[in-house]
């Protein structure tokens, strides 16, 4: 392994600009003559719009224009879309209500877009926005999912009179009923998977620009997938055809899912740029982000697990209500269905599974994918059940898992997925060792002496990443294919540009992708640059989410590099006057088998372009190749996380004392970056488990709309993480990569809650386990123990 090759912890190439303040985020971009947009947002969760009076606002200084839903309709601008069709049990298609970028006739959540004010300066736009008078006919809000499906509940969309988007199911109901019928023990659990706000530190932003000379639009936007944004803005919303619309996602300050989606604000900025004849910029403030970024999670679940007399799992049945908010966001429909239920088998051999999911409209912000998307929810269900079942049957939770692990591969679960490779026991044993699990009892006694309650919790997670085989997701309702593209451009002096359809917003692609190219072509990593995030440079791509950029994005680069090598060999053959079949390529050198004749890669690149040694009829000049990679299966990263914590029963304050993570990500390109991804994921998982929760009151007002009320994990809320790895290669892609971006966020919540319940005498603690919640559970445990 070279210092910059695959497997090396290469320091990141992108860091220089970030540590010197030279990153270029969307809000750093200013176009000449730029105007500013401020949105008039609904203060009501549910209301009809009777009248919008903009007369006074238009007279305010600096105001250029004010647009409402009527203007969009007049321009035949289409609504925002949901790109994944889900069918209900009865075969009927999901009920998608219209989602105009500016409300037409009705608002459905606090923060919904009513009008946009465009002015010379931000301050002027904001002042004028306050002068827009909207006459609302206030309707009752419906925030709670149970209430939303009751007869007579306020109806969010007329197309769904029962506020139900779909009643979906997966699995074999009869087989599952049969499994429960013969069960020796049934563990039952009611679970709330709390609603989260993604909170990438960079708020969303957009700058729309229009060039009259060429009739071309440019949109700078905080996107994880600029090509998908262009596709949707062109083909569905109708801003401009794709060749007249350039979408640039420059440096993006974190996404975690929330920047996958195509929102109203960027749609309006790019559309309005032509209407006002000026570039139009919008940057969210944090409260707008809380109100209008797509939220995550928000499930209510009842789950049951059937066991036989030997403690083997017989079956699982799960009933989930998923809050989808007021509108179906870009991929929202898929998250509580195909990204959720297929993971309910966890790492275990479960013969029968049946899952029902109702997608529900409420008058709250749309809910869509957030780091892990569906898989954290599934993992929480299965890993909480495993913990409770182990306790109920008097078996050590580690042993209970061991007994039920999948041990042979491939393994077909009853819920779609075919696990291709793994060694779940290895990860568990390693994690137990690293966590010093055998001495937990001793540490518990030491804590008790200090008046503290210590608990330990295990979470064995699996996720389906590297999304995804296009045909497979197409059969499940996806509106797009989930391949990835790459283009490798070798310049005449042997430097290389790689154009990728993946997008880096913290993941370090500029480094890891360059490591791949460097080790493959034998050139310095400094001579490789990675180009992404611009639809004028990269023709098409599907973007970064679902831990797919390594497994899918880099596989496309491998395929393009294969073609580069094949072509370069032909060039080398001409130069070395040998047959291309006799050319070997190793360590950056082309040589003729059995001779000492050789030529290095940069020289071959030069020869490819000067084209003196071969005729253009025999071989095309140049060295540039592109490829698309469509995976053949999902990838299945898996691992075991162990959380050990101490509770102060006097206050309910919980301190995480140790965190052990052992993950199997297949082949790892850059361990430093991979570990960083694990750390960040764990912190978000701890955030979900102990700190974060979006709370609406009954009127649909978001009570947690700033960092004053929404608890973001801070440095003193989380521990250092002890991270280890096991490795089984992924058989479905050339690099053997599984993906690592979401693992921590998936693994962590049940590890924390299992540890907490262990600490407080197995009292149930709901997420987020805030001090007051933990204190109450601890009091209950103390009272119960006193009674016993």
């Amino acid at each position, binding site marked *: 392994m070279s210092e910059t090759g695959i497997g090396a912890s290469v320091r990141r190439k992108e860091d220089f600009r970030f540590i010197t303040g030279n990153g270029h985020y969307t809000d750093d971009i200013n176009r000449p003559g730029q105007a500013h947009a401020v949105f008039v947002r609904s203060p009501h969760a549910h209301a009809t719009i009777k009248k919008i009076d903009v007369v006074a606002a238009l007279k305010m200084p600096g105001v250029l224009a004010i647009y409402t839903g009527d203007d969009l309709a007049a321009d035949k601008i289409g609504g925002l879309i949901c790109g994944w069709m889900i069918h209900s049990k009865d075969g009927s298609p999901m009920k998608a209500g219209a989602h105009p970028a500016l409300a037409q006739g009705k608002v459905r959540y606090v923060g919904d877009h009513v009008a946009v004010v465009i002015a010379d300066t931000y301050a002027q736009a904001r002042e004028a926005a*306050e002068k827009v008078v909207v006459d609302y006919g206030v309707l009752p809000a419906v925030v709670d999912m149970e209430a939303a499906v009751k007869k007579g509940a306020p109806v969010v969309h007329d197309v769904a009179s029962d506020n139900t988007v779909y009643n979906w199911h997966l699995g074999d109901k009869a087989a599952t009923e049969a499994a429960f019928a013969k069960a020796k023990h049934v563990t039952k659990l009611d679970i709330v998977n709390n609603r989260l706000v993604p909170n990438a530190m960079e708020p969303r932003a957009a700058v729309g620009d229009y060039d009259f000379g060429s009739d071309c639009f440019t949109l700078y936007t905080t996107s994880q997938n600029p090509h998908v944004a262009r596709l949707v803005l062109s083909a569905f919303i109708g801003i401009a055809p794709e060749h007249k619309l350039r979408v640039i996602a420059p440096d993006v300050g974190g996404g975690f899912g929330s920047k996958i989606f195509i929102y109203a604000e960027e749609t309006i900025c790019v559309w309005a740029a032509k209407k006002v004849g000026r570039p139009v910029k919008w940057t969210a403030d944090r409260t707008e982000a809380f109100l209008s970024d797509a939220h995550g999670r928000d499930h209510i679940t009842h789950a049951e697990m059937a066991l036989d007399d030997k403690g083997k799992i017989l079956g699982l049945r799960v009933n989930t209500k998923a809050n989808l908010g007021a509108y179906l966001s870009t991929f929202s429909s898929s998250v509580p269905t195909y990204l959720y239920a297929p993971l309910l088998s966890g790492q275990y051999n479960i013969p029968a599974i049946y899952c029902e999911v109702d997608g529900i409209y409420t008058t709250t912000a749309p809910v869509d994918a957030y780091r892990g998307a569906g898989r954290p929810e599934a993992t929480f269900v299965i890993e909480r059940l495993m913990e409770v079942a182990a306790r109920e049957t008097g078996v050590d939770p580690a042993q209970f898992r061991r007994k039920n692990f999948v041990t042979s591969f491939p393994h077909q679960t009853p819920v779609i997925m075919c696990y291709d490779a793994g060694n779940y026991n290895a990860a568990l044993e390693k994690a137990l060792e690293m966590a010093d699990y055998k001495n937990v009892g001793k540490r518990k006694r030491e804590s008790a002496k200090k008046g503290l309650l210590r608990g330990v919790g295990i979470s064995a997670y699996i996720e389906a990443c590297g999304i995804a085989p296009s045909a497979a997701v197409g059969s499940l309702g996806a509106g797009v294919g989930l391949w990835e593209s790459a283009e490798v451009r070798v310049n005449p002096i042997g430097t290389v540009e790689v154009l990728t359809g993946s997008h880096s917003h913290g993941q370090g692609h500029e480094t890891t992708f360059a490591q791949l190219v460097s080790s493959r072509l034998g050139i310095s990593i400094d001579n490789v640059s990675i180009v992404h995030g611009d639809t004028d440079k990269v023709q098409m791509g599907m973007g970064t989410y679902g831990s797919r950029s390594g497994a899918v994005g880099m596989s496309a680069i491998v395929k393009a590099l294969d073609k580069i090598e094949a072509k370069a060999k032909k060039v080398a053959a001409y130069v070395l006057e040998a047959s291309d079949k006799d050319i070997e390529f190793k360590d950056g050198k082309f040589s003729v088998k059995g001779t000492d004749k050789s030529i290095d890669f940069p020289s071959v690149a030069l020869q490819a372009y000067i084209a003196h040694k071969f005729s253009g009829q025999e071989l095309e000049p140049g060295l540039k190749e592109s490829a698309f990679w469509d995976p053949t299966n999902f990838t299945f990263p898996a691992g075991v996380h162990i959380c050990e914590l101490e509770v102060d029963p006097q*206050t309910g304050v919980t301190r995480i004392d140790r965190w052990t993570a052992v993950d199997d990500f297949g082949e790892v390109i850059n361990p430093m970056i991979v570990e960083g991804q694990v750390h960040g994921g764990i912190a978000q998982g701890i955030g979900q488990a102990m*700190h974060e929760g979006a709370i609406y009151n009954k009127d649909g007002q978001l009570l947690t709309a700033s960092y*004053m009320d929404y608890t973001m994990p801070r440095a003193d809320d989380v521990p250092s993480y002890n991270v280890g790895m096991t490795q089984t290669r992924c058989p479905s892609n050339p690099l053997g990569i599984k993906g690592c971006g979401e693992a921590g966020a998936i693994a962590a919540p049940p590890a924390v809650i299992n540890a907490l319940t262990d600490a407080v005498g197995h009292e149930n603690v709901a997420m987020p386990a805030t001090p007051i919640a933990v204190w109450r559970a601890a009091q209950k445990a103390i009272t119960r123990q006193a009674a016993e």
Partner: protein
Amino acid sequence: MYPFTYHQPDSARKAASVAGKAEDAKFLAGGMTLLPTMKQRLASPANLIDLAKCDDMRGIEIKGRSVTIGAMTRHVDVANSKELQEAIPALADLAGMIGDPAVRNRGTIGGSLANNDPAADYPAAALALGATIVTNKRKIEAEDYFTGLFETALEEGEVITKITFPIPAKAGYEKFRNPASRYAIVGVFVAKKGSEVRVAVTGAGSGGVFRATKIEAALTAKFSSKSLEGVKMPAEGLNSDIHADAEYRAHLITVMAKRATDKAK
């Protein structure tokens, strides 16, 4: 922010004089609360009188059995004052627990007391220590100063110039932070002077800072956290919000009071 006229007088007297003439004026101390409030367009003074250049409003002076702190003295300076760490260590300790380091570099004791945020720390110290709030017009005893949520005895145009704290025999402060904002959900300042024990609670009361007489009585009998075993504070009159309900706050008052007593020196 809405537009305003900015003033930067260089003495307390001049500041008061500007305030006397300017319509709808507000004093700006460290700005740690006022500026965010103005940014959110929840406050819109026509005139903003910045006290940052009023050097006569800064400094810590120890004289006899009392400590006087200029209103514009920053939290960081209070926390780091060697003299204060000797005289009233609990007060220095409290200042070091306010906000985060960048906030402590700007925020001031006078600003905090003038604002009287029900979750701020200084009001607990002022009330428990029996401080005197000195303004450009008069001296106000802490007992009479705090009149409600964000409400004080200060009149229009009146500015705090300094605060005098009698030096106690022993004092301690402990707080339970709001997990999100890190403001006090419950902050308890315990002070013993002679035979008198005064205990003030911030963060919890629906009317702002208050004295916990039940705890005072228990600690007056014997100044030890053991005296507080079984002392239950009533939940009536305490705040309830998404982070803590009144019952939890009541419980935390006793816990924090115990810990403040253990820390007291």
